[in-house]
């Protein structure tokens, strides 16, 4: 039985980089420098032109929005390749009983979120152009609508995959996307209008969630080694940022443990999140952080119920961890299941039938008595 290092040695012993790699690198650096100088001159010239134009034109003009991807010819993938497990939007009660399903969702839809009135469900799914797209569908079922977004935003990705959150009023979606090497948080209208980029740091910004009043997005910053940047942490921290793009992120957690997957309580006063391996809560200002139920709620992606008395979250099934094959771009992923914890009594109810594929999925509340799950089906 060969080990990894031996296979690595056998695979790469005759593979060498170009002997002129350094010279090529230096040429690239010079080209980049030249482009940077040219870009700087162009920016300076543009600034002069803009200033002149602004002075001469007294009336204000509306900001030009980025061009959005023409999705008029794109549809959500209606069928999946052989062997790939499909998902179904399945409604459970808080005790784990299946109540109903929502029709109209694509077969690989994931990362659900629900508007505050429970009427609209947002999701991600692959289109027949091979890209992942945001979509919305009525909670009562119906035809899924694709949300137009710029084509250079990778909303899902081979490794990272994406997450999203529909605004409380159901008119906008906050989502993570990659367009320059790492995930950042964006907001776009469900009709594709008003795209705003909220974060620009080189860390992985992910799991955005709206405040109940729609003014703020809370998310986690995956952390980085570049510790001198104030927007980084080494372990991953929770941040908030104005949803309209008018302000800078504010760091809410400051510790040496991974903090991730935040979400606001329905009254907006608290935030639940995954701290290390357990569900914690804190105030929306980042104070009074503590584990719920003495740390017995082990998992991630917590979501408060509409009356803030319980939290649904997900956790990995104990070893041996079951895996499920998804479409080729996602590969094989571990199964997670949902659980509900009563924040008053600490009682945990495990919804063992509420099985989802990996941690970009979470269980979300449709209303106080119903939890929506992207239930992973055949092939699991």
């Amino acid at each position: 039985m060969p080990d990894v290092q031996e296979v690595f040695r056998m695979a790469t012993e005759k593979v060498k980089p170009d002997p002129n790699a350094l010279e090529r690198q230096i040429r690239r650096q010079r080209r980049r420098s030249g482009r940077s100088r040219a870009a700087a001159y162009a920016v300076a010239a543009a600034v002069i032109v803009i200033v002149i134009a602004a002075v001469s034109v007294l009336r204000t003009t509306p900001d030009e929005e980025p061009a959005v991807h023409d999705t008029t010819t794109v549809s959500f993938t209606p069928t999946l390749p052989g062997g790939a497990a499909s998902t179904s939007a399945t409604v459970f009660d808080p005790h784990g009983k299946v109540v109903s399903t929502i029709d109209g969702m694509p077969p690989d839809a994931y990362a659900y979120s629900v508007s505050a009135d429970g009427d609209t469900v947002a999701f991600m799914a692959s289109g027949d152009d091979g890209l992942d797209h945001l979509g919305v569908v009525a909670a009562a079922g119906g035809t899924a609508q694709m949300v137009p977004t710029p084509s250079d935003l990778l909303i899902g990705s081979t490794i990272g995959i994406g997450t999203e959150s529909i605004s409380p009023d159901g008119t906008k979606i906050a989502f993570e996307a990659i367009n320059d090497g790492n995930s950042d948080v964006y907001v776009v209208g469900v009709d594709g209008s008003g795209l705003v980029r909220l974060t620009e740091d080189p860390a992985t910004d992910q799991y955005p969630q709206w405040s109940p009043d729609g003014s703020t997005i809370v998310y986690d910053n995956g952390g980085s080694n570049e510790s001198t940047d104030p927007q980084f942490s080494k372990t991953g921290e929770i941040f908030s940022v104005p949803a309209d793009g008018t302000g800078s992120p504010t760091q809410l957690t400051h510790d040496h443990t991974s903090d991730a997957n935040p979400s606001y309580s329905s009254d907006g006063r608290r935030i639940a999140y995954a701290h290390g391996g357990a569900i914690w809560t804190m105030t929306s200002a980042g104070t009074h952080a503590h584990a719920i139920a003495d740390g017995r709620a082990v998992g991630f992606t917590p979501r408060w119920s509409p009356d803030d008395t319980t939290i649904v979250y997900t956790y990995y099934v104990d070893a041996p961890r079951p895996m499920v094959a998804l479409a080729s771009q996602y590969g094989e992923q571990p199964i997670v299941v949902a659980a509900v914890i009563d924040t008053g009594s600490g009682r945990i109810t495990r919804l063992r039938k509420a099985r989802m594929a990996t941690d970009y999925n979470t269980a979300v509340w449709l209303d106080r008595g119903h939890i929506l799950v992207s239930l992973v089906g055949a092939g699991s």
Partner: protein
Amino acid sequence: MALVSPWSVRAEGEIVPFPKERVEGWARFDTFFLDEHERLFKALYFVTGNRADAEELMQEAFLKLWERWDRVETIDDPTAYLFRVALNAFRSRHRRAAVALRKLSPVGEDRDAFVDAEMRADVRRLLSACTPRQRAALVLVDLLGYPSEQAARILSVRPSTVRALATQGRRTIRGTEGARDA
């Protein structure tokens, strides 16, 4: 004997700052490049299975580091930075390649990897049986010695996902018989 060794020994979950004295030794970018590029190239070849891709990703990653070279002392581990940049770029590129491939062939069919290097057929089969995600996890965890927490940040996934990917990759490699004796 490991040809690719950890840059520093780390316990699980521990992050050790990169030694400052080593950073000071890299007064020149080209010295750092010459010290590190072959190791990065081989690791990227192991992940991508394609010599041209590995070369391009390596040079682009070094280019991004070069743009920040005047602040290199603020980067605790430049090598981790290189890997993060290179693997993020590979992720985007792999996704776009998969999109293009879908238009030409049935979904799930992967392009031929590791065909451009002299390699025993059984080793090529072993590597091809792993996905690029699994190979990336193996490079970071088993070859470079990063704890799963740090590998997860480089790959932008959860630590548990890194561990799962590495386990799957090891199982695939170790579960195929005959590679050593073929």
